[in-house]
């Protein structure tokens, strides 16, 4: 397998409502990356984006987004109707073919015009799930209750995740929500989708992120401190909640095993835990210990630009490795209700 590294990355802040277009949100990031690595836009061999037209309700919004990543004269490009982390996966696989050297990955989402709780049932089974309006919050509530009943977590554990994440959000300039709230105060809040309280849910966000990756020598030409992708894998579970063990994440565990993940070696993990119980499920499934700092950015609980939220986890890890805060880290992305599909990306700096 050829060494592939992240050579540049960028992200927007998480906005409750970004007042301009999705392409304009993307354009700034792409310009920032191109300027940083000092290359012409057309020296990037492949471009791939992850976004979802349903968020803004615009048919072919993903085509409009092409303006944002700069495609004239035409570029070689692709798109996934998934979080940008899956676009990163496709780009990584594409670069393995060896004929091209670099790829730009862009992810973006504007959830502000729509009602996510009404949109996301559409990603469930269209015969038995979507007609019930089975939304991600409700699925997370079922997962939370299953965790409590299994003895694998308590409501206090959920609140501790929230308290720590929201406190970390205070020092993240891109976070939408940051607060210093003690666990006891959180536990006094009313239930929203019991046993979840509103603070166990992510905010509704607009935002985007982007990364530039390159193969071995090209990566060293483009930057001083490449952040190497040591492995990337993703796995999926059944679309029927009743066929899954909601207290576990076997798909994450299988991905970790296939990557040979040594959880003890991770200095940092950015988990796309959209609901506080998801962090607990992932920590247990991936066997993350005290030596691994979890979601120093505050994670999705402090800003959740759907479609960009997963790739942003990869960006957050890359930033810490490049900044010298971490040597090795894990970026996680997820899709579907209650952690149905999970992607793991192991990143490492030069020794």
């Amino acid at each position, binding site marked *: 397998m050829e060494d592939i590294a992240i050579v540049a990355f960028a992200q927007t802040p998480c906005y409750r409502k970004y*007042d*301009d*277009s999705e*392409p*304009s949100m993307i*354009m*700034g990031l*792409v*310009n920032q990356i191109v300027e940083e690595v000092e290359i012409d*836009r057309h020296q990037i061999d492949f471009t791939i984006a992850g976004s979802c037209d*349903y968020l*803004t*309700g*615009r048919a*072919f919004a993903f*085509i*409009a987004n092409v*303006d944002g990543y*700069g495609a*004239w004269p035409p570029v070689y490009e692709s798109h996934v109707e998934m979080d940008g982390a899956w676009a990163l996966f496709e780009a990584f696989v594409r670069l393995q073919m060896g004929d091209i050297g670099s790829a730009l990955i862009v992810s973006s989402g504007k959830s*502000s*015009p*729509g*009602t996510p*709780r*009404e*949109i996301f*049932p*559409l990603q469930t089974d*269209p*015969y*038995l*799930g*979507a*007609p*019930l*309006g*089975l*939304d991600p919050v*409700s699925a997370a*509530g*079922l*997962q*939370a*209750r*299953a965790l409590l*009943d299994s003895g694998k977590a308590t409501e206090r554990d959920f609140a501790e995740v929230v308290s720590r994440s929201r406190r970390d959000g205070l020092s993240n300039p891109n976070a939408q929500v940051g607060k210093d709230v003690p666990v006891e105060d959180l536990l006094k809040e*009313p*239930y*929203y*989708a*019991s*046993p*979840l309280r509103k603070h166990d849910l992510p905010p509704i966000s607009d935002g985007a992120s982007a990364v530039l990756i390159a193969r071995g020598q090209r990566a060293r030409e483009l930057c001083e401190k490449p952040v190497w992708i040591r492995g990337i894998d993703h796995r999926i579970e*059944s679309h*029927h*909640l*009743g*066929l899954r063990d*909601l207290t576990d994440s076997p798909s994450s565990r299988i991905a970790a095993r296939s990557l040979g993940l040594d959880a003890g070696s991770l200095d940092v993990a950015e988990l796309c835990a959209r609901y506080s119980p998801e962090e607990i499920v992932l920590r247990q499934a991936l066997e993350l210990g005290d030596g691994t700092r979890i979601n120093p950015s505050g994670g999705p609980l402090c800003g959740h630009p759907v479609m960009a939220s997963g790739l942003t986890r990869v960006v957050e890890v890359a930033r810490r490795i490049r900044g010298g805060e971490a040597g090795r880290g894990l970026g996680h992305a997820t899709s579907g209700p209650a952690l149905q599909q999970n992607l793991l990306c192991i990143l490492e700096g030069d020794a």
Partner: protein
Amino acid sequence: MSEFPISFTLEYPYTRTLGPVIGPFLTALRDGCILGIRCGNRVLCPPIEFDPDTGETLSPDLVEVGPAGSVESWTWIAEPSRKHPFQEPFAFALVKLDGADTAMTHAVKAAGPEAMSTGMRVRAQFREERAGAITDVYFVPEGDARDQSIAPGEGEVEISTHLISLTYNDTLYPHAARYAQGLLDGKFIGQRISGDQVAIPGKGYDALARVMLTEADDVELAPTGTVLSYTVITPVKYRGQKETEPYLSATIILDGAGQSLVQQDIRNIPLDELRVGMRLRAIFKPAAERKVDDVDNDWMYPSIGDVVERWEPTGEPDVPLDGLPESM
């Protein structure tokens, strides 16, 4: 600058065939019973077409389960969404029906969260109006259940219909708001982009140069232009059709614009008098009658709103065909 709120509803009416397993399952629901499917030693409910462990196709060996079962997990929905089966607070639950080995996600109508617990017994209740859909049924705590006598429907349920209907609320982006305000003021406001072109409406950025544009890049265009193309629309009858007589729809490029205005209705020029190259002037409606309700953020379907009373010939000579302006 005033804010321009926009709102629209996106609808996709889906019609799906149900196949050999979901079809009988939904037919049975319509007729007041719940089916699972045999998969090895297990019974899966809701039934699926494939063995979840191996992916092997399951023969449609369906067995009746329920109508009572146990709650394996639940969440109390304090504020239901418009898409939920109940508009008052209810529980979503994983219900393992008697005779089944897997749980079905469904709604439980109960007095309150205190009436819910893991392991509690619930029972299916069927709605009065049933369509052969998952929403034909719901669950209640066993003590609340009433006996029902369900008359079977006719024929097999083979098709499901599902109307996706989503409402979006936004505001016009800053450049689009200036464009809309211009139309209300009786002006065409475009944006200057690369190659000394003017885009109308603008996008708020220059896609070629990859830079954001500002109000300083706005350009007012004269209300005069040239016909680039046209067609005669002959109305056909359909539900909601209001047109009865043939009319003209023209593509017009304003002087100085790099991009044409498409589908401009022409009602005041006889059908056989409009020509490609003809010079036209937009006569705006009185200010009080101008509307920009259909001006949108989506530049793929640009509108000039309802502000132009008519396009009238300027009387200038036609632009020769080989001298027509270029259009993006």
